[in-house]
């Protein structure tokens, strides 16, 4: 489990992250300067969380409490991944190393690390997260600089990349899992309600997303509790 092996395994993730974070950079450049947008990516490394965070910042109506709650619920899945990853790492993966490298727990890096037959070492995990981290940061940097110069037709088109990635994550799961399908359907219907119904549409975007996601997930957790094995991802 060497560093160089991890580096190689992380290359495709890094390329994908570059493309997607490019569109995050564009979205951010609409109201933040490029160093500030890039710094968000360098300190967070989370697509959905950053995107929601950006919306909360952009509306200026969003409070810090809202930011904390939104970040909490959107990124809660990382806790689940961290728990499951912690049972699959080598004893040499000490507490200090865990504190340093836990930022690398993202959907894709986690999935690759768990796919390893051997116990994951800190060296391998570091190698695995280097290129995705660079791809994510550099993509945001390039996107936020281009966002300031490119015409809006082009930046809007590129901005859709992030939604495209969300769709690419959700749709295949909706196809194979009826509970996920129902959960997403409920979330979408609620999301429409918060956008268009009176009273509900006065709720800020950040809270609306949290409420939609939590209510839909709670309802489906009640109707369709996952079997032991399925819950690991």
């Amino acid at each position, binding site marked *: 489990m060497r560093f160089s092996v991890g580096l190689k395994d992380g290359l495709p993730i890094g390329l994908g992250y570059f493309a997607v974070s490019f569109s995050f950079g564009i979205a951010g450049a609409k109201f933040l300067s490029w160093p500030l947008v890039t710094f968000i990516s360098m300190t967070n490394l989370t697509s959905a969380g950053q995107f929601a965070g950006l919306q909360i910042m952009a509306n200026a109506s969003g409070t810090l409490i809202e930011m904390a709650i939104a970040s909490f619920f959107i990124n809660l899945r990382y806790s689940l991944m961290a728990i499951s990853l912690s049972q699959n790492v080598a004893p040499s993966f000490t507490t200090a190393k865990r504190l340093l490298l836990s930022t690398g727990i993202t959907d894709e890096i986690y999935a690759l690390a768990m796919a390893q037959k051997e116990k994951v070492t800190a060296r391998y995990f570091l190698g695995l997260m280097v290129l995705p981290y660079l791809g994510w940061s550099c993509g945001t940097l390039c996107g936020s600089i281009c966002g300031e110069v490119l015409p809006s037709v082009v930046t*809007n088109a590129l901005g859709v990349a992030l939604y495209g990635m969300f769709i*690419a994550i959700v749709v295949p799961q909706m196809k194979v899992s009826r509970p996920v399908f129902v959960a*997403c359907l409920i979330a979408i219907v609620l999301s429409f309600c918060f956008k268009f119904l009176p009273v509900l549409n006065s709720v800020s975007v950040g809270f609306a997303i949290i409420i939609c996601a939590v209510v839909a997930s709670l309802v489906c957790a009640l109707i369709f509790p996952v079997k032991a094995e399925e819950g690991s991802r």
Partner: protein
Amino acid sequence: MNLHTYSLYLLVMAGVTYLLRAVPFVLLKKEIQSPFWKSFLTYIPYTVLSSMTVPYIFYATESTLSAVIALATAVVFSLLGRGLVLVAVAACVAVLLVDGLIF
């Protein structure tokens, strides 16, 4: 947005995100047993992404038409089993074609 406000938002966002990863990674060695909470956590990423995409994608482009076509393109490509990058690129191209050529 001034630098002070930005810093506070960033601190909260990055802090919460980091702690969510680091705390369980360091402290918890056991898996969650409750099927209810396991299910809840399983559904959360998908419901978050769904409610963030629809209806907001409809306002992300120059015209609602291009957004609808981008959504449809992305869904079709996903159903065909294409990867993240290809789906994202296909959605972008769809918007460029509709907004760039028609309007």
